[in-house]
């Protein structure tokens, strides 16, 4: 059998029930692995080992009594450090929240706990989840476990790298423009962004509220689904969360992919893509075809505006959301003689460059005289994209694309060039813009770095997306590869 820390959640859950090992042993194995590799990877910002060991013991008592809470009971996981978790600091990898103690649990975190999951650590991220490489963290970069000179992707780079290097069995991340799927692709794990509104955002530090969505990382799509089922649901504390009655169950469970129409949008195979990445993704598409899916070439013309729409709406919402960091309510407060100077100094010193860049973009786009040209226009184009997406999805059940146009690049390579960095999200942002669910699964390697395949579904057909990914993983073993560390 695999090392304990390398198990899938499904395997671990079975082993715990069969009493092959205890949660304390499993948790210990992950913590030991963390101690062995964390100095190289730097995936975490705070390790909660004392609490985790206590939780593992409590889980073992439930398992021994045959009173397990569900498939996650006793399973060690991690949580991105932009979600509130009692007993931990929530820093969002920003200096402005360096000493901020979580006053309550985010709903997704509370649900993980209620499901018996053992939370081992808070993971590193780009500051306030703004970035595609985890390099904007105020607490140092995370390194890709497949090659320590490469970025792990971002913004949930810590969650992806922790899972890929064996520090936990699953993790939560947040995805505003690709922040779960892109690092999952770069680190060779499975990452799932649910339909907008499927998981409560209560207790997630807001970045761009109309796009933000909490989602899951697993070694398999099955694991990502187990985590999703624990955290999803309508939440009175998040008025944008959706009623569970809207969830569309998989109609033909166990029926393989027979009869599924899978669209390959021309716009998602655009110029600028690494030809080897394209080749791996096309090979994966052929696998789906062998499983009974019908591949269809489709057009999604307005998708080419996904990234510009995103880079208007997101900074506008960022500038509004981050106005709460004022040096008065919480977080860093730089003492000065006046109120206004305290705002300027606290925000100027507390926020890093990328965060300030996005706040300023948003402040400009929303300012008098510019609102119609930027925000209003972007929301109209967004509505047009959504209508086009809905029409397209009448014809096909899923869309297939690469998750990112390239594999992980060198640390520092794109750091000074915002547009080059933003372009790496070109195939993921559109999904957030239209509020759809999408998964990234490993589908091969290019120059020894993992490649991600993205499958996109209709709103609330999350189960179909994840089941299709599971069928693919039944006949391939890319997801089972692990980095040598």
């Amino acid at each position, binding site marked *: 059998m695999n090392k304990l820390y390398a198990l899938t959640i499904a395997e671990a859950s079975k082993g715990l029930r069969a009493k092959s090992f205890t949660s304390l042993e499993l948790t210990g194995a992950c913590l030991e692995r963390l101690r062995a590799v964390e100095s190289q990877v730097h995936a975490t910002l705070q390790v909660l080992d004392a609490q985790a060991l206590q939780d593992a013991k409590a889980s073992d008592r439930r398992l021994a009594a045959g009173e397990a809470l569900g498939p996650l009971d006793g399973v060690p996981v991690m949580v991105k450090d932009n979600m509130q978790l009692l007993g931990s600091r929530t820093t969002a990898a920003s200096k402005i929240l360096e000493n901020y103690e979580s006053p309550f649990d985010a709903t997704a975190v509370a649900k993980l706990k209620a499901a018996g999951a053992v939370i081992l650590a808070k993971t590193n991220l780009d500051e306030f989840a703004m970035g595609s490489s985890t390099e904007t963290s105020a607490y140092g970069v995370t390194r890709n476990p497949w090659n320590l000179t490469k970025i792990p992707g971002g913004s949930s780079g810590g969650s992806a790298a922790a899972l890929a290097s064996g520090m936990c069995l699953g993790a939560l991340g947040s995805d505003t423009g690709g922040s779960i799927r892109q690092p999952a692709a770069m680190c060779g794990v499975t990452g799932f962004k649910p339909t907008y509104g499927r998981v409560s955002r209560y207790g997630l530090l807001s970045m761009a509220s109309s796009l933000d969505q909490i989602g899951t990382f697993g070694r398999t799509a099955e694991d990502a689904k187990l985590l999703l089922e624990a955290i999803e649901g309508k939440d009175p504390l998040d008025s944008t969360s959706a009623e569970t009655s809207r969830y569309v169950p998989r109609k033909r469970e166990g029926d393989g992919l027979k009869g599924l129409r899978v669209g390959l949008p021309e716009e998602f195979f655009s110029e600028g893509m690494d030809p080897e990445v394209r080749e791996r993704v096309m090979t994966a598409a052929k696998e789906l075809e062998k499983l009974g899916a019908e591949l269809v070439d489709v057009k999604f013309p307005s998708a080419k505006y996904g990234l510009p729409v995103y880079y208007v709406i997101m900074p506008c919402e960022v500038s509004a959301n981050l106005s709460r960091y004022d040096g008065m309510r919480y977080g860093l407060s730089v003492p000065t003689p006046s109120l206004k100077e305290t705002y300027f100094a606290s925000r100027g010193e507390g926020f890093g460059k990328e965060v300030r860049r996005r706040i300023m*973009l948003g402040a*400009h786009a929303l300012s008098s005289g510019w609102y119609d040209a930027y925000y209003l226009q972007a929301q109209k*184009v967004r509505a047009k994209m959504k209508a086009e997406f809905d029409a397209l999805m009448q014809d096909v059940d899923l869309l297939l694309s690469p998750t990112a146009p390239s594999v992980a690049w060198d640390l520092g390579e794109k750091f000074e060039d915002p*547009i080059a960095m933003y372009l790496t999200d070109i195939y993921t942002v559109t999904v957030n813009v239209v509020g759809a669910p999408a998964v990234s699964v490993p589908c091969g390697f290019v120059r020894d770095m993992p490649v991600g395949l993205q499958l996109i579904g209709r709103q609330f057909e999350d189960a179909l997306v994840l089941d299709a990914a599971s069928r693919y993983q039944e006949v391939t073993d890319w997801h089972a590869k692990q980095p040598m560390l």
Partner: protein
Amino acid sequence: MSLSREEILKIANLAHLKLAEDEIETFRAQLSSVLEYVGQLSEVDVRGIEPAAHIAGVSNVLRADEVKTTPTEVREALLNAAPEREGDAVKVKAVFR
């Protein structure tokens, strides 16, 4: 579209952000290039299209108009998170003089 140094200073002022002298030119160049990139949105024909509101179609979510109490420990933690606290209030600098 290219922003001027004055525009950057105006935006920073609107956003309540202090910029270091050497950051002004960096931000000016970077923000200008992003604005130029997103400028392509103006070419999209959006006549007759209503702007998107909630992308998953949720609207007018209401709750009962009733007082809900926050648990004491959460209340304390929230108050303690403030840089300055006075009794059960968050202390801030004078807004009006």
